[in-house]
């Protein structure tokens, strides 16, 4: 795993911390972690996480991308895409 990916997981962990009571699962967060199944996050808080991600990474996430963001790995993929699209060249 690249350092950049691990840093993204750490940033996601900080964001998600406000929305989950399952701190044991949060401690073991990895790319396979499913927000709803593993961290018991509801659909409304999933929206909050996506909004926090937008702010933290200064990106805009569209509806289709948001629907993919069910796991940590899928979220990182979306963040990477949006960051890449943001760069001027």
């Amino acid at each position, binding site marked *: 795993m690249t350092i950049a990916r691990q840093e993204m997981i750490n940033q996601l962990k900080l964001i998600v911390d406000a929305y989950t009571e399952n701190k044991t699962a949060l401690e073991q967060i990895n790319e396979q972690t499913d927000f709803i199944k593993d961290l018991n996050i*509801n*659909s*409304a*808080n999933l*929206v*909050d996480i*996506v*909004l926090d991600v937008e702010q933290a990474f200064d990106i805009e996430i569209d*509806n289709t991308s*948001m629907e993919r963001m069910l796991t940590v790995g899928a979220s990182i993929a979306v963040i990477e895409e949006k960051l890449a699209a943001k760069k001027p060249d």
Partner: protein
Amino acid sequence: MTKQEILSHLPYSKPFLFVDELQHIDENSVSGSYTFDKDLDFYKGHFKDNPVTPGVILTETMAQIGLVCLGIFLSGSAASGLPGHVMLTATAIDFMKPVFPGEKVSVTAEKVYFRFKKLHCNVQMSNEAGEVVCKGTISGMVTNKMNA
């Protein structure tokens, strides 16, 4: 959608309908009113010999006017949209004054955001004297299906 169309889409009936009329609605805000029927059943027990409208009912009234009516309007006004259902997901309310049987209250709500089907609003309820009764934030998911 007109105000009347929104009211006709509300999924409530007596004794759990807490909207009489809407004064205004647009894509950013809504205001409406409700008069608490003094014969509502919960007044018999809240409290014994001392009826006061329960905070959960004030919250529900703010949710029906401020969140559900606005959610129906926003989903029904979208390009491909049908009026949706609104599932309450979170509330944070402060209560300032009691509301007694027979009182008329006005609710105003302002959209903070409506993104990814989540509607988040600032809401406030006032009594007929214009005093703020309670205020806070309410949010919910606007869905196609009820309870989903």
